[in-house]
């Protein structure tokens, strides 16, 4: 029955979607929307005629779920809100129920049974849509996490032979690995003899972070370079002492400026203010 009404449902659905305030014409064109809707209805109606309403895990339903999942994921990536994505499926339910009502007419009992079936089915499909939508969003977040980890460890060459590495955020094992690798590589590439690790952007130094710092310093020493840790704030200094971490055999400074000064001293460089010559 629904098969014959396919065109009808599609028209009704499209009307519902277009009437919805949440329609995002800036993100998706009407033609694309129609194509998506048509594809979904096609496979949905084919399945409805098979009579299997309950078991969505069965093979017959996999094409519908695949299409729906694909739509949900692209919507998540395009930046649709959950409400807008939900409206897509909910408005289909409305269109189906409306058609059903027109077809069955006065037979309340039959109308109720059929409506319940459609309801249950569409609710299941909505849940699937949301699951996939959220999965799509999570993928975006994971990708961003990776990107942040990549960009947050720049090695800066502040002077000939002096490298600086500002660390921002918490140092975990994975980040330490990235920091150490890029620092050691840069030491080789530039032939630097002093590296400054600036931790003013690290919110808290616990024993694991300290251990990672100590490891990085030892590795730099093995490469024949000296490593200075700068940016130790007063509260960090106090916590480190309370924790009982021994950083006494590492050169530490409170600011990047004083670390740079120390580096100049080690390299026997001097920064002088030019006094205008008086004749």
């Amino acid at each position, binding site marked *: 029955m629904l098969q014959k009404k396919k065109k009808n449902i599609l028209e009704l659905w499209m009307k519902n979607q277009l009437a919805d305030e949440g329609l995002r014409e800036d993100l998706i064109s009407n033609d694309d929307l129609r194509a998506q809707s048509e594809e979904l209805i096609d496979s949905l109606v084919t399945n409805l005629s098979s009579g299997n309403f309950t078991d969505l895990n069965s093979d017959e339903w996999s094409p519908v779920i695949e299409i729906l999942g694909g739509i949900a994921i692209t919507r998540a990536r395009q930046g649709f809100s959950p409400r807008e994505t939900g409206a897509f499926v909910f408005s289909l339910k409305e269109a189906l129920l409306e058609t059903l009502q027109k077809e069955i007419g006065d037979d309340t009992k039959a109308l109720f049974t059929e409506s319940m079936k459609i309801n249950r089915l569409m609710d299941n499909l909505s849940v699937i849509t949301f699951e996939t939508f959220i999965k799509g969003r999570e993928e975006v977040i994971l990708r961003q*996490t990776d990107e942040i980890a990549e960009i947050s460890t720049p090695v800066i060459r502040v002077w000939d032979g002096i490298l600086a590495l500002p660390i921002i955020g*918490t140092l*975990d094992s994975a980040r330490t690995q990235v920091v150490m690798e890029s620092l050691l590589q840069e030491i080789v590439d530039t032939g630097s003899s002093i590296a400054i690790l600036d931790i003013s952007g690290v*919110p*808290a*130094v*616990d*024993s*694991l972070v*300290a*251990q990672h710092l100590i490891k990085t310093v030892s590795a730099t020493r093995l490469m024949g370079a000296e490593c200075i840790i700068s940016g130790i704030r*007063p*509260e*960090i200094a*106090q*916590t480190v002492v*309370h*924790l*009982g*971490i021994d950083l006494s055999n590492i050169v530490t400074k409170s600011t990047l400026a004083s670390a740079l000064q120390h580096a100049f001293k080690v390299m026997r460089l001097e920064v002088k203010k030019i006094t205008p010559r008086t004749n």
Partner: protein
Amino acid sequence: MRIPTCQTMILALSKDTIKVTQEQDVVFLKNRVKEVAVKIKMGLVNQTRLLTAASELVRNMMRYGGGGSCLIEVVSSGRSNGVRLTFTDKGQGIPDIEAAMRDGFSTGKSLGLGLPGTKRLVNEFSIKSKVGEGTTVTIVKWANG
């Protein structure tokens, strides 16, 4: 009727439980702890101490307990407010708590400062552990303590 005596009456003002199973939850937990500490006007040094302590314990929980949950409470002892954190995991437990509380003792390859260091950072510290059942660590840091 006998009223059970307590060393000090500690009142819990607000409660919040956070589950920690992934690396991302750690950052979330630390942010929440910081928020609560700022709310009760804890000083910057104490904030950092509490945050560091929380960081140590949550690391332990991830590493040895396979994840768990943390209860964040704002507590009051009448005169001052503080933050109480309860870390609960269902990991293998600690066979020798006395040894674990000693500086430099570690079954992993760490500095072995986590538990004893944490104890020095906070005002109140208690640890309960049963081998095979899990570990519970409770710490309290007062806003001006």
